[in-house]
């Protein structure tokens, strides 16, 4: 049962004096869909390379299925992989591409297993085509089939959907999630797309500057970010500047806003997601101001309100029956519950 476990213990890697990954510890449970999310240069690809064995950490350990594989060659690790840009072999047809991991490992029943993998990604009938004859989505499926054909307990995916357009990407996310659950494999997924991360993952690790900032279930990191970076990186957020006093934020004008947590004393931001804010007066936190602009986003109507002190509040309201947009310049009051807001160190 531990075959699919992945653990990084205090792993560091430097390139020419620059820290790419610093003191990173991760524990992924078997069967978990674990996403490493971060902007480019955050160290997520280096982390994946070290798990795959393309890079060796300067310090720390990497355990795969409970075994220390820190310095093992890539081929000794028995991983399935989906590469950025797919890395489809141009001189091999679809069948041989998918058969590659099996032949490389000297496994039996190649034909049956390739057919099975192709069926899983719904690419039957394409066996004799070459990569250049396939659409982007089909190439992606070949890459996926190749990652699962050897039935590796652990599959690494490096921005696998980056090259697809938005609709196809969402569609493929669903398929990947389905396959992962069906096969019960551990997936370590690297992306810089936060929606993709939240849609797919059991847990998300957010990296910045070579360090892991926060790891947790999508909802947890979304609603309870540990700092302003995480808050901003995972979608829209309101961050109101002030000073933390207990479980409240004192603004520059001396008014107080209540939070769900006790902040670190000193300069701080009060965080609240736009969809947790209501237009209209409320019993807990509220601010008044004037409408700056109102944007129609289909299922959402986004309103930006200047509440004074260089602070703009963004409010997302679900579009519904009789819903009207506010006119810029109109007076408005916004309110939200203390339970939906958190104090973050500035």
């Amino acid at each position, binding site marked *: 049962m531990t075959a699919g476990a992945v653990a990084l213990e205090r792993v560091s890697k430097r390139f020419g004096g620059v820290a790419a990954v610093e003191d990173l510890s991760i524990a992924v449970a078997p069967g978990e869909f674990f996403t490493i999310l971060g902007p480019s240069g955050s160290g997520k690809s280096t982390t994946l390379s070290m798990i*795959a064995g393309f890079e060796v950490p300067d310090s720390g350990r990497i355990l795969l299925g409970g075994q220390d594989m820190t310095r093992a060659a*890539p081929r000794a690790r028995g991983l399935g992989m989906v590469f950025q840009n797919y890395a489809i*072999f141009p001189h091999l047809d679809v069948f041989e591409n998918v058969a590659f*991991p099996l032949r490389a490992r000297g496994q039996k029943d190649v034909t049956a297993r390739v057919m099975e993998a192709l069926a899983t990604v719904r690419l039957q009938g394409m066996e004799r085509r070459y990569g250049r004859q396939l659409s982007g989505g089909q190439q992606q499926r070949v890459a996926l089939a190749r990652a699962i054909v*050897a039935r590796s307990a652990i599959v690494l995916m490096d921005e696998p959907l980056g090259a697809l357009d938005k609709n196809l990407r969402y569609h493929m996310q669903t398929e990947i999630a389905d396959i992962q659950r069906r096969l019960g494999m551990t997936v370590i997924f690297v992306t810089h797309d936060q929606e993709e991360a939240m849609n797919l993952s059991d847990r998300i690790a957010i990296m910045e500057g070579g360090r892991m900032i926060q790891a947790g279930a999508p909802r947890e990191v979304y609603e309870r970010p540990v700092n302003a970076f995480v808050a901003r990186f995972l979608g829209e957020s309101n961050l109101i500047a002030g000073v933390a006093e207990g479980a409240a934020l004192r603004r520059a004008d001396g008014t107080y806003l209540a939070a769900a947590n006790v902040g670190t004393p000193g300069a701080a931001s009060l965080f609240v997601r736009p969809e947790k804010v209501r237009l209209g007066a409320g019993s807990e936190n509220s601010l008044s101001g004037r409408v700056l602009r109102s944007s129609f986003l289909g299922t959402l109507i986004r309103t930006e309100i200047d509440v004074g002190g260089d602070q703009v509040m963004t409010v997302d309201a679900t579009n519904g029956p009789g819903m009207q947009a506010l006119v810029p310049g109109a007076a408005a009051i916004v309110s939200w519950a203390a339970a939906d807001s958190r104090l973050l160190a500035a």
Partner: protein
Amino acid sequence: MPLPRLLAWLLLLPSALLLGLVFLLPLGWFLGNALGELGSGSEILSEALAIAGSRAMQRSMLVTGEISLATTLCCLAIGYPLAFALTRAKGLMFRLVIASVLLPYFTSVIVRTYAWMVLLGRTGVVNNALQAIGVTQGPLSLLYNRGSVILGMTYVLLPYMVLTLFSAMRSVDMRLLQAAAGMGASGARIFLRVFLPLTLHGVIAGSLLVFILAIGFFITPALMGAPEDMMVGMLIERQVEQANNWPVAAVMSLVLLAVTMVVYAVYSRFADIRRANPA
């Protein structure tokens, strides 16, 4: 991205003109007139068949083929790892290797060949070194044999192989090799199943180029070979310079050209130049 047809033709025009004026026109003129001396078409053909069937020409073609093939294989054996090292070398290392590969082109063939004589002669560097460390008792005959011809020609032709292979290897997406390793392939499998197939068009193109160039060699075999290492190029040169027999030289040239065209035809049947470079 395909160029507009007219533009493509216009771009081709200068080189076509140059080729036509300084190569095809004089060549056609020479062949036409030299062969004209032999008489009618059937007389030319019977003369050509007589020359092609002559013992000297057949022996010489065989010698030429053997030497060219061996040279091509040597260039490939040395050039392939060298080209691969070039794809990995950076900065100063890259420039050093490139410079040493291209160095033969900065010196004349005579100087290069005398350099080999200094190295390989009976009192040359290699023989002296071998005797000094006690490997051999007397001097070995390293010069004036088949091996020294192949060595000398390999040295001269190596850059064509290396540069052709280098450009083929450069176009290989190195992430594919990493991907293969990630999928469990051993180094040997990565080479045989991924890298070699992806560079095969370079191997074929480079080998063909070297082989065709080798077929026409005559200075290196004349200087470094044994008497019997007489390549067709030398035979033709003798007809022009010693016998002053241009018709025979022309016919021999045509036989050589015909062989070259056959090699090229075989090549283009098996390798489509445009398709061979995978996107």
